[in-house]
């Protein structure tokens, strides 16, 4: 396990980064032309409501004081009221977030299932016809925007073959394995292309490493060499890559949730933008930033657990 001091120092590193993230989001609404209070209020807000918003955001105070209010409000979970939903932003986000997290994890699972076996196949037969074919197909996958992959799957598997529903969201865990199959697969086909490419490269490298040649030379069966030595080492780079591509994954959910009408935070972000619901846009942007930095943190921890050498650094 990672040591406590490593965990603490890693947590401390997040603080300045997050402060800067808060500055970005704070400046965001203040960069809008006009009065921020009007931007943060409903179209038909009364003067009384505007006064309340000014009070809550401290808009009459100097900027640094306003920033203090903003940090305080955010840390206490007060993200303001959504203009579109007429409810507290935090409530709306918490309601929709599980859908997006489910979709993301589903997509990660699928992309590992697609990429890992193919990467192993391609790496063990590097530069063969199989390798070239696999890489070629994934290269095309990398050139497809996620919304287009989604539309193709929707047309072929949803509308023509009627294998999966073309949109919506179910009620139970298992119902959603079926309901979210197409959106998850759309994201997975894109992320698996990135994963396959990097996994293959690191597998090729590991297969060539001295400790693997040694394991072979001492007569270990191929299976054991692959599972105990090769895969374990390739796992480190795969975890890192998956962690670092969380941003891609989130961008993917935003697009697929729109294509497949899935009620997650990604689609909510677009609804918020078209409705000019700035409190909601602000809250969602912050939510995405929190998700990404927590994932980065988790990646670091898993990585140092898998590869003790990294703890020294």
């Amino acid at each position: 396990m990672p040591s406590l001091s490593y965990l603490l120092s890693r947590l401390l590193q997040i603080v300045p980064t997050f402060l800067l993230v808060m500055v970005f989001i704070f400046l965001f609404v203040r960069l809008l032309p006009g009065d921020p209070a009007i931007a943060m209020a409903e179209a038909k807000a009364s003067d009384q409501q505007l006064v309340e918003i000014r009070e809550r955001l401290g808009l009459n105070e100097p900027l640094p004081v306003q920033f203090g209010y903003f940090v305080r409000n955010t840390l206490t979970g007060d993200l303001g009221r959504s203009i579109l939903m007429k409810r507290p932003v935090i409530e709306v986000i918490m309601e929709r977030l599980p859908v997006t997290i489910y979709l993301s994890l589903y997509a990660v699972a699928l992309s590992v299932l697609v990429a890992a076996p193919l990467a192993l196949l391609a790496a063990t037969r590097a530069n063969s016809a199989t390798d070239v074919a696999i890489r070629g197909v994934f290269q095309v996958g990398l050139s497809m925007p996620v919304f287009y992959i989604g539309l193709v799957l929707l047309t072929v598997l949803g509308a023509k073959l009627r294998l999966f529903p073309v949109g919506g969201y179910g009620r139970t865990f298992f119902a959603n394995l079926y309901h979210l199959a197409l959106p998850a697969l759309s994201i997975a086909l894109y992320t698996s292309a990135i994963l396959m490419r990097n996994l293959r490269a690191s597998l090729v490298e590991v297969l060539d490493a001295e400790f693997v040649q040694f394991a072979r030379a001492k007569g270990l069966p191929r299976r054991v060499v692959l599972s105990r030595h090769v895969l374990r080492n390739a796992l480190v780079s795969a975890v890192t890559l998956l962690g670092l591509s969380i941003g891609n994954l989130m961008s993917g959910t935003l697009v697929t949730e729109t294509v497949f009408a899935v009620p997650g935070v990604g689609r909510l972000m677009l609804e918020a933008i078209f409705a000019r619901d700035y409190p909601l846009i602000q809250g969602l942007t912050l939510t995405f930033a929190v998700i990404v930095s927590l994932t980065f943190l988790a990646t670091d921890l898993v990585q140092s657990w898998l590869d003790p050498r990294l703890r020294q650094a």
Partner: protein
Amino acid sequence: MTTLEFPAPPQRSRLSAFLGLALRRPAFLIGTGIIAASLLIALMPGLFAPYDPLAFDMGAIQQGPSLSHPFGTDGFGRDILSRVLWAYRVDMQMAFFATVFALMIGVTTGALVGYYGGIADMIFGRLVDAVITFPFLVLVIAIVAVLGPGLVNMYVAITAVNWVYYARLTRAEIMAQKAQDYAAAARVLGYSDGRIIFRHLLPNALGPVIVYWMTDMALAILLGSSLGYLGLGAQPPAAEWGVLIAEGRNFIMTAWWISLMPGLAIVLTGLGFSLMGDSLADLLRPKGR
């Protein structure tokens, strides 16, 4: 006694040596071919498009792909192939303008920060951490939300985020070059910092940046068409691939070609840029030669 005669070493310029290597790579040839063709179409779409992209043909509404309309027709009988070819103008422009300013700003900043280090470098490090904490698309559409939808605002939004990635890459390359002997020699000779950075270090550091630029142009087309599809990028009636795909969205059950055919252009162009980028990366890597 006879003198031994050695054949003179072939005198080839670096460029021709590079081209010699490049031309033997099918990936490079295919990639460059696709991009050259795309540029040609973008410059003269009228020369290639079989029909007027805006002409209604009420006798040929929502027809599937056929010999006379290879990509089919839309709800107004407009020829989809012609519309896709005209859209090359906007999409190729997107690949360039969404990346070139980020490239210039990022390279300059990265070079300065990498060379001088110190406080500026520390601040830059925190900035990079903060920017990569946002999903790229989320940050870009949040900025578009402030500026309003449209092509120019999309360029501004993408540049505002993207320059950081170029700067990070350039910074790393400059730091590696700075440690080399020739950089120390230039300092000993008393050259100005500006001359050392921009005349000596930068030309040697640009290789990986150019490769990244190629791949980034592919990403810009993916991103730009996604924004077009979502209604935040190019605005209809502008012919842009994402916008064309969005136009067919409601007919996907009955007339799939309206949406799916324009996507082929995205895939092909994206493939062209990434093939070019990848093979260029191979060529620039010393052991790949």
